[in-house]
């Protein structure tokens, strides 16, 4: 059996000792080979452990940097390109005080057949898809005005639809008009001045619309006595485009309807609507018992159906799915420049989750003013009701802005509302403003409330 040397033979040549990877070879000055000292090995192990720890820290740090960077870019990718407006800036100083952390959002549906630059939409498209007649009609009426109150801490969302024909004092000393006309009146006024200054084209349209938004926001804020924190404006084309992304949308009708003006032709019961039908569904008012007020409930029901669908498909929690919706929103929807989508997502889980209730603000009756049929309203009563529901601070409600309470109007065709829609009931009518939140009789509003979170059946 061959004998192997127990230790490495002494080197006699001047060649360097083979290098070890982790530990440098001990210096040899001759004599018998020595064992490496134990403390040195401990030091090596400690150094290796320290190196691994350092590597782990560096990798974790890089991962954190990468993750936060991806999140940051994802947000900006989602958020970039939104059309924003400064219209709320003019309102902030005079806004009534709100409750801590609660957010009020005004949804504005603009009945315009023009694009963002004021160009008329293609005639065929308007007639065939939107079923909305010529680009010349409709003007800039805000046919949908819905104030959504999102309470601090994520409670139930309360939304108030303002009937478009409510006869109120328009902000900016423009006198009394239908609330839907505030936008168009202010826009026309502003454009007159701008044209005199030589402003033309898309710039004229943009600045005119800004004036219209300011007037609408100020009018609603004064009428309801609550601060408006954010707003979103969508026109007919925007609604159609959004409906195209989310279609088919399931709705439910209590009875069949047919209306040649809006193009609505639906059977009773549950049914799926495409974008064109969806627009007809929310625009129909002819042939409905409640007219405009029934249309308001249609809009509420449609919003509920869309929210229900988006929630059931998991769109709210999926950046990829949200992107498709956002592409349309970026094109057709105008929001205020301080609206942080993340904050809204944080504040509105109940809204996106369907925990919301729609009410239609009460009217006192119908009348004719300046040759037009209008809704008479008791502004004090409306403010008190809204304040009672959401605890809004309506300190500015010292005087009635409408001057057109029930029975106060002159002219022909005045009638008090009664019957099933009975809008004259209770609800703290004429009460002082700034009421605390509390129970409100169910008949205080115009008709029954529409609960979000499913597919409500409406007329």
């Amino acid at each position, binding site marked *: 059996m061959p004998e192997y040397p127990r230790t490495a033979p002494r080197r006699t040549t001047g060649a360097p000792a083979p290098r070890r990877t982790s530990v440098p070879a001990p210096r040899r000055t001759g004599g018998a080979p020595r064992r490496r000292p134990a403390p040195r090995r401990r030091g090596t192990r400690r150094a290796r452990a320290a190196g691994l720890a350092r590597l782990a820290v560096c990798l974790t*740090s890089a991962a954190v*940097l990468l993750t936060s960077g991806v999140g*940051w870019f994802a947000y900006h990718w989602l958020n970039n390109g939104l059309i924003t407006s400064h219209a709320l800036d003019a309102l902030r100083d005079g806004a009534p005080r709100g409750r801590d952390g609660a957010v009020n959002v005004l949804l504005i549906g603009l009945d315009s057949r023009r694009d963002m630059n004021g160009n008329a939409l293609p005639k065929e498209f308007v007639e065939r898809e939107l079923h909305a007649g010529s680009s010349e009609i409709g003007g800039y009426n805000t046919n949908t005005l819905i104030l959504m109150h999102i309470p601090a801490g*994520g409670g139930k969302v309360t939304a108030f639809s303002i009937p478009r024909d409510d006869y109120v004092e328009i902000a900016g000393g423009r006198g009394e008009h239908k609330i839907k006309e505030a936008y168009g009146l202010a826009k026309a006024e502003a454009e007159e001045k701008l044209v005199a200054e030589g402003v033309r084209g898309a710039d004229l349209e943009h600045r005119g619309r800004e004036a219209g938004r300011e007037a609408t926001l100020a009018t609603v804020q004064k009428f309801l006595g609550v601060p408006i924190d954010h707003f979103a404006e969508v026109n007919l084309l925007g609604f159609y485009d959004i409906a195209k992304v989310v279609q088919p949308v399931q709705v439910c009708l209590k009875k069949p309807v047919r209306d040649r003006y809006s193009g609505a032709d639906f059977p009773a019961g549950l049914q799926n609507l495409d974008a064109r039908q969806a627009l007809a569904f929310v625009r129909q008012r002819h042939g409905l018992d409640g007219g405009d007020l029934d249309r308001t409930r249609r809009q509420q029901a449609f919003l509920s159906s869309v929210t229900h669908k988006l929630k059931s498909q998991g769109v*709210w929690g999926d950046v990829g799915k949200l992107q498709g919706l956002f592409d349309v929103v970026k094109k057709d929807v105008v929001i205020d420049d301080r609206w942080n989508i*993340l904050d809204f*997502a944080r*504040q509105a*889980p*109940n809204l996106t989750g369907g925990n919301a209730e729609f009410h239609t603000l009460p009217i006192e009756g119908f009348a004719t003013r300046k040759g037009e049929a209008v809704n008479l309203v008791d502004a004090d009563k409306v403010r008190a009701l809204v304040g009672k529901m959401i605890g809004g601070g309506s300190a500015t409600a010292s005087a009635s802005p409408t001057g057109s309470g029930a029975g106060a109007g002159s002219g022909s065709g005045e009638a008090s509302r009664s019957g099933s829609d009975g809008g004259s009931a209770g609800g703290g009518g004429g009460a002082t403003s700034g009421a605390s939140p509390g129970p409100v009789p169910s008949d205080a509003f115009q008709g029954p409330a529409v609960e979000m979170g499913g597919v409500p059946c409406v007329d």
Partner: protein
Amino acid sequence: MGGRPTATRRRRTGGRDRRAWVPLLVPAALLASGAAVDAARGPGLGWLFAAAAALAAALAALTAPRGRAWWAAALPPLVIAAVAAVTQLLTGASGPHTGTTAMTAGIRWAMDSFPAIAAAEAAAVLVLTLRAVRTGRSARPDGSVRPGGSRRADGSRRAGRRRRGRAAHA
């Protein structure tokens, strides 16, 4: 007799290790103050937090002992991310009571922390690079450092080299 110097050395080394954390206290306090003030100004963390983070990282990179200077570049993302998350929790920007989705909370955290992390990393790398360039200029060709060549807060590196130098001569 032999035990006393060892114990003294251990005490000395331990003392130095403890002191090494002291310079990090100022940047940490700076970062926390920046987060607190920024959070008090409004929802989310903004430029003030990012500026405080950059300043804190620069300070840490300036005062870190040479052997541990890598901490100044590696730690900012972890510390800033933690501070942003804690701020988010404390200010109620996230939490089960609001029903916040994980995605929203995650993006909010990223929005709060990434600009500050990026600013802090940039500041730390810049200061560390400047330190390295300055040290490289003042180093002698044989690798030793001219007296006063290295700007040290605790002077440990200079002393260590001197010791090695003496050992080599001996």
